[in-house]
């Protein structure tokens, strides 16, 4: 029975695919402290590699072109950090001080609703006692999240040192290292290995470039929108919406929470501001779904939405926020590897003049 399973193309594919998955999972666990800088460096590599190639074609050596790309990266990072970061940090601290007011506003709104229900329908719903525990808890979570957000700003400094170094070595040596590794494949699997690698690399590169452009556009659109309607901390909210947009399906929903809470915190409550905040997100999402996604991301990921959502939940549970971001490209990669392996193994089995079920 076991022999039959391993001889069947499907059984053999599942076995090899499982071994690949276990190896990658082990590597991810071993490298978990460096996972964020490595993922960021690969994303930057996908963006900067074409630039390095252009420089090389202009006659620069691999070292010189990689160094130029590194310098460009450091310059952009320095500019972003010197111009944007103090502004964002200020907005973050404003938001932190506003948080208790947000909960206060929501509590008072709940009390008003309760009073109205009591007066008109004689229904005695003690929203204050019901919500007391929830709001205290939520307040703690919110404050913790914002303090962690501030800590993230500090750990960004570590990333600032690590990411350019890893990116530089990726730009300089990744191709040679990849060739060295793939050339280790046996002659019989050499072409199939390269075929699968190129399909994965092409799709991942398209996805990373697409999602980064999409995230940037979302960030700009929502920042401008929040600024126009006069919401506090518009650029921080825009940046949050952009980052959350990296998570398909779930991210856009999460992105609406913070602006709505801030709009609710206004005293007296201005309903038009809540509506305007929701409209900004909706309009940005509409433009994103109708123009940006079809032209930028297109068919970079051919996965069923349900699989993507389940993947996001599972990866989020395992690796936190970064897990939610990498869930879609990881699933897409696994899909291509599985299909490529199955196609290759099945073709080889079919070629052998043995019964179709065994090879």
């Amino acid at each position: 029975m076991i022999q039959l399973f391993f001889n069947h193309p499907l059984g053999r594919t599942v076995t090899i695919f499982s071994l690949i998955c276990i190896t990658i999972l082990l590597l991810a666990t071993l490298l978990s402290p460096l996972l964020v800088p490595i993922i960021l460096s690969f994303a930057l590599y996908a963006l900067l590699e074409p630039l390095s190639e252009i420089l090389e074609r202009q006659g620069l050596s691999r070292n010189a072109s990689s160094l130029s790309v590194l310098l460009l990266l450091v310059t952009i990072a320095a500019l972003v950090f010197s111009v944007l970061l103090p502004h964002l940090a200020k907005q973050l601290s404003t938001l932190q001080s506003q948080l208790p007011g947000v909960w206060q506003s929501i509590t008072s709104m709940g009390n008003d609703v309760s009073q109205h229900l009591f007066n008109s329908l004689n229904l005695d719903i003690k929203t204050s006692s019901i919500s007391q525990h929830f709001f205290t808890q939520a307040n703690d979570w919110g404050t913790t999240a914002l303090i962690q957000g501030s800590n993230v700003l500090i750990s960004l400094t570590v990333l600032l040192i690590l990411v350019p170094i890893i990116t530089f070595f990726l730009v300089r040596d990744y191709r040679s290292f990849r060739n060295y590794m793939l050339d280790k494949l046996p002659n019989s699997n050499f072409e199939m290995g390269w075929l699968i690698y190129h399909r994965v690399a092409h799709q991942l590169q398209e996805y990373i470039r697409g999602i980064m452009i999409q995230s940037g556009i979302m960030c700009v659109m929502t920042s401008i929108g929040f600024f126009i309607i006069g919401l506090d901390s518009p650029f921080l909210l825009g940046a949050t919406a952009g980052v959350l947009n990296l998570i398909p399906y779930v991210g856009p929903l999460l992105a609406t929470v913070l602006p709505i809470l801030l709009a609710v915190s206004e005293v007296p409550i201005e309903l038009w501001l809540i509506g305007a905040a929701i409209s900004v997100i909706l309009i940005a999402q509409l433009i994103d779904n109708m123009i940006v996604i079809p032209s930028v991301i297109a068919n970079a990921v051919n996965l069923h939405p349900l699989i993507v959502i389940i993947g996001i939940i599972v990866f989020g549970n395992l690796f936190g926020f970064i897990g939610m971001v990498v869930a879609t490209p990881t699933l897409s990669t696994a899909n291509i590897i599985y299909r490529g392996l199955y196609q290759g193994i099945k073709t080889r089995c079919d070629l052998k003049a043995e019964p179709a079920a065994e090879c």
Partner: protein
Amino acid sequence: MNSKHPLWQNLFRPKDDRISEVTEMWMSTPLFEKIPARECRDLVKTMHPRHYKKGEKIFTSGEIGASVILIRSGGVEIKAAEKLLAELSPADFFGEVALILDEPRTADAIATEESELIFFLRSDLDEWVKRSPRSGAQFMLNIAIVLAARLRHTNILLSLQNS
């Protein structure tokens, strides 16, 4: 620091003399006619040398192909349905159909002696065409000429057989 010091050398970088030799070989084939030598040399750096033992299969009819192959040393025979179609020697190339079609190979290729083969992958060709469309177009034209010549040759053989 002296870059020629072994410690500072890039261990993965192929040696230059091999690249020059393979470039010359490719430039002598009709595939690289009218393509600048510098571009061919850059392309050779992305190609993949593989070593085959005598009697080892390079590819089998029905397998998905992804590259055109140049013989640097040794020899290769091409067979279809156990019938010998061609015997190839150094500087010959085969499997060029795989650069155009994402379809199974139509013949078997077997090394007749210890051989070193240079694989030029379709994915590398695609990237090159995007990078240098002018040379890429010339290369495609060259492939079309090679395939047309093969078709013409086959037609003549068939007509000779029929007559």
